[in-house]
């Protein structure tokens, strides 16, 4: 394992691991809820560095992965229209819907463009008045302020040929859904640092109290993750359940008020379907009624498409921390990042794709204890 800085060297990491080992009296299952953290854990082998009894399971923290198949199919239906310029972040292009992906649609002539920021869509809209510009608004709380600003700005400027297909998801309701599941194994959480930069962590305090579960808001660097794990283990061993902030250098309890204010003006909370998991109550954003003219789902009236995941795929269980990629018979054989079958393989931040990227399909690793 290689750390970026000398002063944050392997020695510090080794001390943290030693402290975890000293404290730990029994096995614990801890979930990280951020795709960036998952990536970092697998890349640096942090899960293998931890003592045997500490199991890290990977949560639903990749918005690309959890965007429902129905929503992706709707995106494809809209992108195929000749009067539409369909815009998206780059990581959605290869995500397969029931039949195709945006990348293939583009090669078949659809006008699909990758944008760096949703504000780019307004520039495209101003330059192409005869076309309808539709943006695929996916993401967690971190991305919502950007997408809210694009809509708010379009309304302010009177840009009429712009709309968004909203598939926003929220982290706290997903954590609640995991904890409510009868099969739940997760005993403590590493909270998503960058999501909390925006939202703060008040909501996590009520979750922690309600379910009596430790939540430590954690960054995504290797040492952050080890420190976050130590704080969770310390709480578990002393039977405490509270919210702690390992990532204080980036996260304040109240979050970014300016961002929250605009998100609240443009979006409201709704039920949302998660790929692999199903519908979770109050787990997404939709546009407020005042902004209905920017709602692509309403403007294009795309039908509900009934879609099914392949039966072999256990990504739903992986997203809830019940299973690991190795428990899936298709992992690395029938299912690869080039030909993904399910949610957790479609983006580099999904657990299956991260395991694959770092060669874990090659060395047979023990499946999870419940497998």
């Amino acid at each position: 394992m290689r750390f970026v800085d000398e002063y944050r060297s392997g020695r510090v990491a080794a001390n943290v691991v030693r402290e975890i080992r000293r404290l730990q009296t029994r096995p614990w299952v801890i979930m990280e809820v951020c795709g960036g953290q998952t990536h970092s854990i697998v890349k640096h082998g942090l899960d293998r560095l931890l003592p045997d009894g500490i199991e890290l399971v990977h949560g639903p923290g990749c918005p690309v992965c959890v965007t429902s198949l129905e929503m992706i199919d709707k995106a494809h239906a809209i992108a195929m229209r000749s009067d539409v310029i369909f815009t998206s972040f780059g990581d959605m292009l290869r995500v397969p819907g029931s039949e195709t992906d945006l990348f293939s649609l583009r090669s078949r002539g659809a006008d699909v463009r990758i944008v760096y920021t949703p504000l780019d869509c307004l520039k495209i809209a101003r330059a192409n008045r005869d076309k309808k510009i539709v943006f695929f608004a996916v993401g967690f709380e971190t991305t919502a302020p950007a997408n809210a600003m694009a809509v708010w700005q379009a309304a302010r400027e009177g840009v009429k040929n712009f709309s968004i297909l909203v598939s926003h998801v929220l982290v706290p309701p997903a954590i609640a859904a995991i904890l409510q599941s009868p099969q739940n194994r997760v005993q403590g959480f590493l909270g998503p640092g960058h999501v909390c930069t925006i939202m703060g962590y008040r909501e996590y305090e009520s979750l922690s109290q309600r379910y009596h579960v430790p939540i430590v808001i954690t960054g995504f660097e290797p040492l952050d993750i080890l420190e976050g794990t130590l704080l969770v283990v310390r709480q578990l061993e002393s039977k405490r359940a509270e919210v702690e902030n390992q990532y204080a250098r980036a996260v304040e309890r109240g979050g970014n008020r300016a961002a929250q204010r605009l998100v609240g003006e443009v979006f409201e909370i709704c039920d949302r379907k998660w790929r692999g998991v199903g519908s979770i109550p109050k787990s997404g954003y939709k546009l407020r009624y005042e902004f209905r003219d920017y709602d692509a789902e309403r403007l294009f009236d795309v039908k509900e498409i009934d879609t099914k995941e392949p039966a072999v795929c256990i990504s739903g269980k992986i997203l809830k921390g019940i299973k690991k990629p190795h428990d899936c018979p298709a992992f690395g054989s029938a299912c690869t990042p080039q030909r993904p079958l399910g949610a957790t393989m479609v983006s580099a931040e999904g657990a299956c794709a991260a395991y694959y990227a770092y060669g874990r399909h090659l060395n047979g690793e023990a499946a999870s204890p419940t497998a």
Partner: protein
Amino acid sequence: MCLGIPGKILDCFAANGLRMATVQFGGITRQACLQYVPDAQIGDYVVVHVGFAISKLDEEEASRTYRLLEEIGQLLELETPAVDDPPDGEEK
């Protein structure tokens, strides 16, 4: 896709009524919106996510985080071609 990338504010300007900045990330510069960090100034380091600065941070933290993102291959979004707007008054 939720990770922000730290960069340095080189200049500030208004475009279409929004407070914007040119932000330097390693060898690349991009435009970013400053509406969510109203007190950010030239020379400050900010975390930028999909074209929006979402928080400030200090220089040391910024450079360490940047190198780490580079190492885990999370800088891809910076490779997306820019659709840059000229500042107010010089609309193309």
